[in-house]
């Protein structure tokens, strides 16, 4: 059969009206080959078959853009870039050239991000990390652009003269973990050899403050010698911007339902933008991609580890690997802890994972049967004592230290007399004294250390109540003492209670009660605040408590003020005459609980000079001169008086005339009914008051 059909030859020189290509003869009569090829490349809006979102440029074209490289071959491509094997001509070394799709540069923030992140990545110099040699962008322009820019419905092919962003990286001659997984399950021994290397690489990067964000088997390379190299560090952040999520799998994507994973493999496509399989994303990365920290890498590592051991991805309910495969049961713990949904419950550092794995590897359990391993497990638990929640040791030590306080006091009593001068006992006493004096401070400090420890342990340590108690006990006691002193000073300043020789137990009691209530309130509030802070619970009721406390304080202030100004009715105001002819008449009393103003008239007969003042006789028969400054010097005859005091104390008030040597000879009581009846019972001195009504 002939391939070329004979046909009438077309006139020479006929060209395609659209593109100017000379038109052929034969079966293609009337059809322009260039246009046909164009038509063949065009895609409909509906995808026909599987087309990659990014068509990597051919080797020849790249060679023109990177003259300093000899492009050898394309070694991998996916939705978000292509990787070529190349040789740096000058240095004569094999490198990997990774280029990003041209459309990526459209985001204006991208270039800035690219430079910033790439600089940080270039500093990652570690045997376990694929080293970044160079990065940048190169312009491109070729006949290709004409081909593609004239497409009617093209959306995926390149546009003219766009810069290509590229990375020049270490070339790893080997395979990636995905290929190994596809080939068959990795043996536990191999997995345990691989994981520590990954941990090293990750820890190094974390120490530099770089989070990978896209740990998955495709990014873990193994060279011919079995050395692990982690690739594509931080690329997710560059490509996806602030929300650094994982990049799509390069190479062949997993078919849905592969390996019986209970978690379905998703590959979401969105008109040129492809999202990767979220199987390796930690929960916090799915919810808030911009706020993850290095612990997201630990989760991803856990998933990879799980997959290496069992061949499957962990499903919704994570079954321990040892139930699926014959492996050391201790590995369950490691994997499950790395896979904790809450970051606070995972390993906090990748190096911890490595330590655990290496410990398990170096201490063989004899056999990997579950029953034997159980005892092993409990032994390890006692040794490590990290997995079972235990009481905070710090807190206990704090209590012991506090016990030194009473102990020191008791020690002399407990020591038998004959041993008292024993040098050992004396040394012991000195030590005890030292501990005694440092106990308050020591206990407080230990308490706070215990608080932070318990908080950081995220459930492994308990005893927060004791730690907070220890941390607050002495400070609050000191605060109470300070408060008492303040109340005292404050009270004296505002004449709430007396100072000096007139001070007595009633006021003592008043002061103590006031101090007690106030300090109780403040202590409670402080404890509450600290407790909530220590337990890190979000208390939306904090406001309420603050308002309640402030209200209480205001009420207390109001109460105290009322106490000051509350008017007291005086039922008895009267006058009195006395045997020698003197008389005192009280005309008005204006009185509150703390203040008093008394007005009246007097008539001095029996002497030439005398004194007139306001007194309060207290229940212990102590006569209190309310205000020495208001003692009136009177001479015989009549007169008016007006006396006041702001030092009202419980007792019987009276206005009294007395001689210079202090003997009282005329006085009038006044006060409330209660006071009057009390006075009548006493009835000393013969003073009488006449009821008003």
């Amino acid at each position, binding site marked *: *059969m*002939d*391939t*070329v059909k*004979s046909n009438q*030859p077309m006139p*020479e020189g006929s060209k*395609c009206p*659209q*593109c*100017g*290509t*000379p038109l*052929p*003869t*034969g*079966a*293609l009569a*009337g*059809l*322009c*080959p*260039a*246009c*046909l*090829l*164009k*038509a*063949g*490349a*065009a895609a*409909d809006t509906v995808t*026909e*078959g*599987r*087309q*990659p979102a990014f*068509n*990597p440029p*051919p080797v020849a074209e790249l060679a023109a853009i990177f003259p300093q490289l000899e492009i050898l071959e394309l070694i991998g491509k996916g939705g978000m870039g292509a990787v070529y094997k190349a040789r740096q001509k000058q240095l004569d070394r094999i490198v990997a050239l990774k280029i990003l799709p041209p459309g990526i540069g459209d985001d204006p923030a991208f270039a800035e991000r690219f430079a910033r992140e790439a600089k940080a990545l270039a500093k990652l110099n570690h045997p376990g990390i694929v080293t970044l040699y160079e990065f940048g962008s190169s312009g491109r322009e070729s*006949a*290709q652009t*004409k*081909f593609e820019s004239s497409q*009617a419905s093209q959306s995926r092919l390149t546009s003219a003269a766009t810069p290509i962003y590229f990375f020049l990286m270490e070339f790893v001659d080997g395979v990636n973990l995905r290929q190994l997984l596809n080939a068959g399950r990795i043996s536990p021994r191999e997995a345990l050899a691989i994981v520590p290397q990954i941990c090293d690489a990750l820890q190094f990067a974390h120490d530099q403050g770089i989070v990978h964000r896209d740990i998955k088997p495709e990014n873990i390379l193994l060279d011919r010698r079995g050395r692990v190299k982690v690739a594509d560090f931080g690329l997710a952040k560059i490509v996806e911007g602030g929300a650094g999520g994982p990049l799509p799998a390069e190479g062949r994507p997993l078919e849905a339902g592969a390996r019986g994973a209970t978690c379905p493999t998703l590959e979401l496509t969105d008109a040129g933008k492809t999202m990767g399989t979220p199987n390796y994303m930690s929960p916090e990365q799915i919810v808030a991609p911009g706020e993850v920290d290095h612990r997201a890498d630990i989760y991803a590592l856990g998933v990879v580890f799980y997959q290496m051991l069992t061949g499957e991805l962990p499903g919704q309910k994570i079954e321990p690997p040892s139930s699926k495969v014959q492996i050391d049961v201790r590995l369950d713990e490691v994997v499950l802890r790395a896979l904790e949904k809450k970051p606070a419950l995972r390993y906090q550092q990748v190096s911890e994972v490595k330590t655990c794995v290496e410990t398990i590897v170096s201490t063989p359990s004899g056999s990997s049967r579950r029953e034997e391993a159980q005892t092993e497990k409990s032994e390890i638990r006692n040794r490590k004592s990290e997995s079972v929640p235990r009481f905070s040791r710090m807190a206990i030590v704090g209590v012991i230290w506090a016990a030194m306080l009473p102990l020191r006091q008791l020690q002399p009593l407990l020591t038998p007399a004959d041993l008292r001068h024993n040098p050992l006992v004396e040394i012991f006493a000195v030590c005890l004294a030292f501990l005694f004096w440092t106990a308050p401070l020591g206990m407080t400090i230990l308490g706070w250390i215990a608080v932070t420890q318990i908080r950081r342990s995220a459930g492994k340590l308990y005893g927060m109540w004791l730690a907070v108690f220890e941390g607050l006990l002495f400070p609050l006691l000191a605060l109470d003492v300070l408060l008492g002193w303040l109340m005292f000073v404050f009270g004296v300043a505002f004449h709430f209670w007396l100072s000096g020789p007139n001070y007595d137990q009633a006021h003592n009691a008043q002061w103590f009660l006031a101090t007690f209530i106030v300090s109780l309130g403040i202590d409670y509030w402080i404890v509450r605040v600290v407790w909530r802070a220590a337990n890190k619970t979000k208390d939306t009721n904090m406001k309420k408590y603050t308002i309640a406390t402030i209200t209480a304080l205001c009420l207390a202030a109001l109460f105290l003020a009322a106490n000051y100004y509350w008017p007291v009715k005086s039922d008895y105001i009267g006058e009195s005459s006395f045997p020698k002819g003197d008389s005192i008449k009280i005309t008005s009393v204006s009185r509150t609980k703390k203040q008093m103003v008394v007005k009246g008239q007097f008539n001095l007969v029996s002497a030439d000079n005398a004194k007139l003042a306001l007194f309060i006789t207290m229940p212990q028969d102590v006569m209190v001169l309310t205000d020495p400054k208001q003692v009136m010097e009177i001479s015989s005859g009549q007169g008016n008086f007006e006396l006041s005091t702001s030092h009202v104390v419980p007792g019987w008030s009276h206005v009294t005339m007395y001689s210079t040597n202090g003997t009282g000879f005329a006085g009038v009581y006044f006060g409330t009914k209660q006071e009057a009846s009390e006075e009548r019972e006493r009835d000393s001195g013969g003073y009488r008051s006449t009821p008003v009504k």
Partner: protein
Amino acid sequence: MTSEHSAPASTSPGDIFATTHWTVVLAAGKRSTPQSDGALEELCRTYWFPLYAYVRRHGHNKEDAEDLTQAFFARFLEKNYLAGLSAERGRFRAFLLASLKHFLINDWKKSQRQKRGGGEMPLSLDWRTADTIFHIAAVNEPSPDRAFDREWALALLTKVIERLQKECEADGKAKLFGQLKIFLTAGKGELSHAEVAKKLGMDETAVRVAIHRLRKRYRELLRDEIAQTLADAADVDEEMRALFGAFSA
């Protein structure tokens, strides 16, 4: 003598076991199977003209070119070249050209001794028409390699159009194909559907649908044909681009 059977080529998209002619040949390697033989012949039959044109451009006259082309195919079909030239194995086109160049440099002298008409002719090729076409095409050729690619593309497209035509004929739509063929290269809105609809006795919408289907099928066949010459079916776009590049002046 031409062989009746051709190698099977299952190329449904997404088929993991998709094989192309070229992959079959490569897979067979030195140990040929009837399948691989058939595949190779099929490929050679489609693309012999570009080779002939290349040889002509190399400076040989008509008779010598014919001899050489035949001799080359004889050698090639003995699969002597599959051992080397690893870099070009991905693409049959590149491989063929490289093999031809190799041949022209090294073996030409040896095969010159073979007289015209001597030896077995596994493929019967139409030399007369080849010459005619060659003359027509030999105007302002920039480079033999470029011309090779161009002719290769022509051979490819011819094959595709022929397949498309055969399919339409088998479905009883020969006339439809004849009329709608021109729409394969037309841009949107360039040609009026109304005229064609009248000629075919269909309404415009039906014409539009038919065009769409034809275009789609054409694309599928084009991709399939290109894939036949590749080791990795994913390189189709690249190959298409390269072929197009041969036409841009």
